[in-house]
């Protein structure tokens, strides 16, 4: 798998994957997309990188610790869910602020939830892929 073509190409393509995945993530609320889809896009990119360079290099270059990713992602979803308790609403109530970031959307606990989903899925898929590849 370690062909020169793949190696050269993937190095250029990963930033594009990343930007596209973020775009899909933040666009999800109003148009097709969302956390899960975005996460899959970037995972595909990183899996190709792993095939081209090997797991160790990929982990090193992109500073990925898959277990930490899954844990952080899950934690963020948890926070997104329980944030509303602190304002007395009950859990899984969505909290919306009025801050609109252009290109990203309105900040809210729902967005936090989606970002958590994103990170967790990236972590989980990459962990599976890395483990299989390393074996």
């Amino acid at each position, binding site marked *: 798998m370690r062909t020169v073509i793949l190696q050269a190409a993937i190095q250029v393509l990963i930033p594009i994957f990343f930007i596209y995945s973020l775009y899909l993530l933040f666009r999800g609320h109003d148009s097709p*997309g969302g956390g899960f889809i975005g996460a899959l896009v970037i995972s595909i990119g990183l899996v190709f990188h792993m095939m081209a360079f090997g797991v160790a290099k990929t982990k090193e270059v992109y500073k990925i610790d898959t277990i930490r990713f899954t844990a952080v992602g899950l934690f963020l979803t948890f926070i997104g869910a329980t944030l509303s308790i602190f304002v007395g609403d009950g859990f899984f109530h969505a909290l919306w602020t009025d801050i609109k970031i252009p290109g990203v959307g309105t900040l809210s606990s729902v967005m936090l939830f989606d970002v958590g989903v994103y990170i967790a899925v990236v972590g989980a898929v990459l962990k599976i892929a890395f483990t299989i590849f390393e074996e």
Partner: protein
Amino acid sequence: MIIVLLISFLLAFLALFFYPKTSGWLGYVVAFGTLGLFIYSLSFVPVVLEGEGWLEQYNWVPSLGVNLDFLMDPLSLFFLLLITLFGFFILTYATAYMQGKRQANRFFFYLILFMSAMLGLVLSDHILLMYIFWELTSVSSYFLISYDNHKEEARSAGLQALLVTNLGGLALLAGLILLGNAVGSFHFSEIIQHNLVGHPQYVAILCLVFLGAFTKSAQFPFHFWLPNAMAAPTPVSAFLHSATMVKAGIFLLMRLSPALSGSEAWSMTLVFIGGFTAMLGAAMSVNQLDMKKMLAYITISALGMLVCAIGLEEPLALQAAFLYLLAHAIYKGALFMTAGNIDKIQKTRDLRYLGNIFRTMPFTSAGVLLASLAMAGMPPFIAFVAKEKLYELALEQSGWSVFALIAFFLSSVVYAGIAIRLGYRLLFVPGLKSDEEDSAAEESAIGAPKQKLDVPPAMWLPPLVLGVIGLTVGWFPAMVKPFFNEVADRMTTSHKDLDLSMWHGWTPAFLLTLATYLFGWLIYRFRTPVFRVLHQLFKFDWLGPEQLYNRALERLDSFSVVITRTIQNGQLTKYLKVIFVLVILLLGITYLKYDLFPADWNFQQEIKFRRIYEFLPIVMIVSGVIMLLNESSRLTMLVALSLIGYGIALFYAMFSAPDVSMTQFLVETITLVVFTIILHRMPKNAVFPRSRRQYLVIAIATVFGVLMTFVLSSLQDFSIASDMKEFYVSNTAPKGKGENVVNVMLVDFRAFDTFGEMAVLCMTALGVMALIRLKTYRNNNL
């Protein structure tokens, strides 16, 4: 109130993340944080003593009536103070104890997590919320017991504790639900205002709740996990298994006693099981060589006494139980900590070889001495007053409940004997020398005095302070008297004003106490014959519950091996065949039975192609299937499968399901890539055998596909009218603040499902990692 809980959880996470970076002093920080919680809780005392308990409620799912409800009344405040005070001592102790141990941050995390769960348990008003914390204490106890996870005995002890307490926990859940339904409310504050004796489900509730309490508080026959739990590091034994977790069952019984007491079933069960446990624990402690195990059996015995006392239906009973609970926690916690100190310095806990501790470890010995005196029930310790109260209580009994008197007396005699063993013999009499010590002594410089080597102050101060507390509270009972009065007031209909003074005159109870000292000394004096008798008795332990547990587990193991071998032989094709055939059978039979197959077999829907390229997905799918069946190489088959997948994704796109389509595309791509990697690793010249099995597979697949088609098309005819579509479409924009219905559903309306799926996904990833790494580890080490 919830702030106490939140801070406690926060301390746990603080310890987890930051402890390694601080080389240990963070332990003191969290210890003092806990002390802060204790002081904060003290501020509630005046209010509660006025009789003004209160409720706090935080919304969780208000529409279902499930909320975070907390209750502060004398009972919960008592336990709150107990847990936080002990937490402070234990955390201080643990910080010094865990110096230099690997992954100590994990230890502190579990320990404080446990403390938080315990706090939640005693503060909960909603019985199911209490249940959640109950289970959380079991889980964190499991992690703590098996902390030294490289040791087999720690792992199995942890598992044993978990299984036994969880069994009780399940029963407890059932009992609590029945209880809530019977009373009509799931809140303790309302439950304790009803009494359920005579209710049709009273006996069931009683049995189930008893199961929960007895497993947690190590009563016979569920007592065997506690001595094995001594495999845990000493701070754990001192905290969980003497002062807090095992008291949770007692707490539950006290909490529910207004609702469940008043019947013979309640009293007799508690008195007999508690009394028997008390005597059993005491008897089993005598022969123990390991100091911690000895203390564990005495704990079992003391818990038995508490259970027995609660069963005696007297106004004095609960007060006496409370008092003894406090006294026991004080001296037992102190003793465990000193056991840990001795273990650390002398590197052994074997009581045969330990001796003359006073010379080498004076400060620890002071703690041992105070705690032993308390255990024997000497004045002026609070334990003496507590013991007297229990005797008073027992002496008032008549009929079958005189059993309580026998149980109390015999157990206390043993305690006194053990107290002499520890307080005198351990401290002042040299122990046996083991063989290595003998030769080592000869090799070292002759005449060199044994060095005074004791543990750091953080380790001998807590037990000493606890001993002093026991002394002080005994001397000045006025400090706690109004408290206990108030508690008993809440729990029973009438109460006697507690007379906690030291001297009551030559009452029968006092005479009994004197007799206890005498017999205790006699047991110590004639210990050798006593040992022998008990040794003979306990040869019957193959009949006992622990062996039952072990054998039950073994049988369960072999049973599951048999089943797994039959159903899951390791071949993926077989699993799939089983699944598909089962689905076909179930669906097929249902359809045939209810005559759901369409009468005429022409399809209701007309297939119209509006544009020519809508043909394309079908072409892709069909050609994919043909490629698959022609299999030339694995890679080709893989590509064929992906072709089919992309074709399906195209279908979704054409039928205006863009999110699903995108997901399908991406998932198809990822699985293609991952499969390619796997194929790459497989041996190159493996070839698929084309055999008869192949045709069977094709047949199953075809039948399955056809059946599914029928099901789906018939569903069109049986569509249920529901407002869900309308609801989601019309509410997405205003309430969900988004335009994409699918996504808004995933992360907002149905976010709870997504959350669960995320957790499952992460667990899957962990499982894959574990399985593959395990296989690699095995392969490498063969």
